[in-house]
């Protein structure tokens, strides 16, 4: 039985290589399930709960796409990937999209042949110090010992920052975030630096979070977003505009609570186009007219997703910051639905 599968696989391999690149949307519809790559676990962004149900900020993007394409937010096969396996999983077609707090960089976009379909979280490298150190700015950190994960971009950013400000530091190389927590709490280093969202999540687990502060300096740009393979623009459009629909929904005041009412009684033409009561936006994407409505209905708009998973009410307690709508001084700016 395995043998026939193997031979069959070999014969269609050549054809499939061309065909697979063409129609991810059709593949997903035919399969009835979206294969979505996520992390093996990152606080607030993606992790299964006690019932084995995936929850989190990145997970919500997967579910929104599934709701838009298949009409069912639970029709997702979550494929956990590590930092090392994520890109091959996407390139080999094992997953249809990757929503795994992946930084949008030039080389990943161009050289690895992926297409980032937007940014769902603007992150940046920050610093955490104990309050008793009495430091209020990263520029006061001259001579400090810094816990830093080796082999990451954060290591390079750190060196850049200290050189640019003409101050010195003593690196304490560590391997994982867990190790960093222990080292930092044990006092092996004065400062711990990594992505600001990671710092906030780490601080939330401390016994006395109030004794540690995050410094105001953010020394790098880490735009995190979902990505798909090069060469299938229709599918990239679906993922891009699903994310944009969530962002636009917040801007226009459409939430999971009022989306049904808005769809039937809105006077705002853009809301009507977004929710599919006017215009042909859904069919242009190859989806049903109420695609965005389904995504918003099940997952909530961007603001709701943020608040539920990583917002100030959660233990992680991230403020919107850069991730506020452009109307509130943030960077979230979705192109219009027209």
């Amino acid at each position: 039985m395995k043998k026939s599968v193997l031979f069959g696989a070999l014969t269609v391999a050549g054809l499939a290589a061309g065909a697979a690149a063409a129609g991810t949307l059709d593949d997903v519809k035919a399969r009835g399930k979206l294969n979505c790559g996520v992390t093996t676990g990152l606080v607030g962004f993606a992790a299964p709960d006690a019932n084995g149900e995936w929850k989190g900020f990145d997970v919500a993007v997967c579910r929104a796409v599934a709701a838009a394409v298949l009409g069912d937010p639970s029709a997702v096969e979550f494929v956990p990937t590590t930092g090392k396996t994520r890109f091959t999983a996407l390139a080999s077609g094992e997953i249809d999209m990757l929503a795994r707090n992946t930084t949008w960089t030039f080389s990943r976009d161009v050289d690895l042949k992926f297409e980032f379909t937007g940014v769902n979280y603007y992150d940046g490298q920050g610093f955490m110090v104990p309050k008793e150190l009495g430091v209020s700015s990263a520029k006061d950190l001259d001579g400090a010992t810094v816990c830093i994960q080796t082999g990451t971009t954060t290591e390079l950013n750190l060196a850049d920052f200290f050189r640019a400000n003409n101050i010195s530091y003593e690196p304490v190389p560590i391997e994982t975030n867990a190790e960093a927590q222990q080292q930092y709490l044990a006092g092996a280093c004065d400062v711990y630096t990594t992505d600001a969202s990671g710092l906030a999540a780490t601080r939330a687990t401390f016994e006395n979070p109030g004794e540690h502060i995050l410094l105001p300096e953010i020394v790098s740009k880490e735009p995190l977003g979902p990505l798909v393979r090069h060469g299938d623009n229709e599918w990239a459009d679906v993922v891009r505009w699903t994310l944009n629909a969530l962002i636009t929904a917040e801007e226009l005041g459409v939430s999971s609570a009022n989306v049904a009412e808005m769809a039937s009684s809105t006077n705002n033409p853009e809301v009507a186009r977004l929710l599919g009561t006017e215009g042909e936006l859904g069919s242009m994407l190859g989806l049903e007219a109420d695609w965005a409505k389904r995504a918003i209905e099940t997952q909530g708009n961007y603001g709701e997703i943020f608040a539920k998973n990583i917002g100030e009410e959660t233990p992680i307690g991230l403020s919107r910051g850069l991730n506020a709508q452009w109307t509130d001084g943030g960077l979230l700016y979705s192109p219009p639905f027209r």
Partner: protein
Amino acid sequence: MSDAHAHSVAFVRETSLPPAPPPVAETGIVKWLRENLFATWANGLLTVASLYVIYLILSATMPWFFNGVWIASSLAECREILDGTTGGCFAVLTERWNQLLFGFTYPNELYWRPSLAFVMLFAALAPVLFFDLPRKLLIFTGLYPFIAYWLIWGGSILVPLFALVGFIVGYVVYVRLEKTSFAAGFFGGVGAALVTWAIGGYITPFLSGVLALEAVPSRNMGGYMLNMMLGVTCVSLSLPIGIALALGRQSSMPLIKWICVIFIEFVRGVPLITLLFVANVMLAYFFPPGTGVDLFLRVVIMITLFSSAYIAEVIRGGLAALPKGQYEAADSLGLDYPQAMRLIILPQALKISIPGIVNIAVGLFKDTTLVSVISMFDILGMIRGPILASTDWNGVYWELLGFACVVFFVVCYSISQYSQWLERRLATDHR
């Protein structure tokens, strides 16, 4: 005389003294203490110092352990209950117990199936491990892999049934043909088994509902169950393959010899984690999207290849340790190669190799945690991934990793105790 004597001494004892108890310093616990702990001045000092260190360790860990919280729904709640006192947060173990054992995607209502398979594992292993038990029990051992597969993965019973029938047909053909020549029997048996499996492969898809349990894909396996499955499968598969490789390496036929040598040396020269990455990442490129061999199977194949190369080297050591006279004795009895190996050489060589094989088995079992780096959720993967990444339990390290240590220690220590019993039983030192 006696009178004179009576006058010359003041007192004569007429009865014998009852035996006095030995001096306190020469008996019981005091003697033991004096001899073992306080024999010399320096020893006494060391003893006191050691006691102090033990006290330090216990005084730090015991309150932590006994004051632990076993029921809470998150780390924050744990800390609230502890209210500043020292104590472990073992509630994570109770709340995520099933996830630690079965992974987070195995359906809850089906937990009884792997549990039953686990219990039956002992029954299946017993006749292999303890050869005083009746030999008829081995029949169950032979059936066990198929029963376990059916229980854990579910699906129609026809799939494991056909696999079993294939083996039986192959064996029957082998017995028939073996009388003419071993090679004919071997290849005939393999061919017959393949034909049976091919026929089974055509039939089963039409009868997929026959005695079907709810199917669970490999992707949903996880937790300690995954470690056990990988460990048991790979050890039991790599032992026969390792024997074959060891014999192949000693073969006088150059082709077989060099295939075995190259295979063993190549696999031993590559880290296991590299092989796992190849299994997970590279093989996906060779299959079109959506097809491909099951990840669990790929990992089993890679770990089995890895450990069989090591076991082959251990057994080769056993073979080399046998005096040449044993081989010559077998030849002089007129035994052919398979008979000589089966009846004379291997029983002795395997006996010598027991410690080495057990060593590899224990190492292999612990190495199964490496699959967590290719995003399979074994017990370590569950801890490092989903559990520590949940907002409820982020920050609980000692309790979770300590639990993993305990469950691995239980299994590995039992294996090594068994092997010591086996060695005593077989008395391999030729006394």
